[in-house]
């Protein structure tokens, strides 16, 4: 899972920091949590990694974990939002990743991709509009987090 480990003394070992898919703000959560609500934008966040091993059509794939499309998988979706993506099979859909996107050899990715880094294997097939690099995060009006008390 791509949750950012927190090495600060303020965070106990059973807590980790995740970045909200929607507002990009960090949230401290329990290491074993499966889903949380962002304390800034109040959206529900799934924390599990998602793995596809066969054909699947979905409206959206959204997780704070890593999405893996295995070699024999064929995923058709409107959008993928994740903190990392590994494509070894076929994926059709727009991708927004806060972490690296890895496209394996012979993999196929058709759709627009926004990610900080991209790695492409030999023989991969790509088609879409790409935004790669440290792009400015979208400015959103996000309410301040509720006070701890």
């Amino acid at each position, binding site marked *: *899972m791509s949750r950012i480990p927190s090495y600060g003394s303020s965070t106990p070992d059973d807590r980790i920091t995740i970045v909200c898919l929607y507002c990009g703000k960090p949230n401290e959560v329990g290491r074993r949590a499966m889903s949380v609500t962002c304390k800034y934008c109040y959206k529900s966040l799934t924390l599990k990694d998602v793995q596809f091993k066969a054909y699947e059509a979905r409206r959206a794939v959204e997780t704070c974990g890593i999405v893996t499309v295995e070699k024999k998988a064929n995923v058709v979706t409107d959008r993928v939002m994740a903190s990392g993506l590994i494509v070894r099979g076929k994926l059709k859909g727009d991708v927004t990743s806060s972490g690296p996107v890895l496209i*394996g050899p012979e993999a196929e990715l058709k759709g627009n991709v926004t990610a900080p*880094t991209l790695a492409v294997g030999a023989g*991969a*097939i790509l*088609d*879409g*509009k*790409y935004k790669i690099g440290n792009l400015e995060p979208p400015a959103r009006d996000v309410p301040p987090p509720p006070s701890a008390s």
Partner: protein
Amino acid sequence: MAEANPTDFPTVLGPDATFKGEMSFEKGMRLMGRFEGKINTAGRLHISREAKLAADVDAGAIIVEGEVKGNLSASDRIELKSTARYEGDLRASKLVVDEGAVFQGQVSVGPDVVKNRPPMQQGGGVVRPMANTGQPGFPPAVQQGQPLK
């Protein structure tokens, strides 16, 4: 990056040079200055870190370390090094993106992409069929990027 053999890039546009127009060459060119226009070659184009290119390029292989605006097409591969800043449409058989590279634009990558591409606008340019089509010795494409956790 390993120091390239000077014979790999017989043509060099130095750091204080500015070129506007259309250029074609056979083996390879290292661009260190500014270039505006169009480049046609079956060889290699190396855009150095300090270079600025605003051009449509049709080449055998393109290595980008500097700043590029325009459409790039390579029959073999396009390499975006960590210092690359690229904006435009990209078409190649293989794509290598180093961590830190920033690019934005339409991407078409795959073994059949360059074979099936629409003919480039020639615009009266000097595009000679290459008698020696042997591409410079690239190692077999290597999967890039670090594995995701």
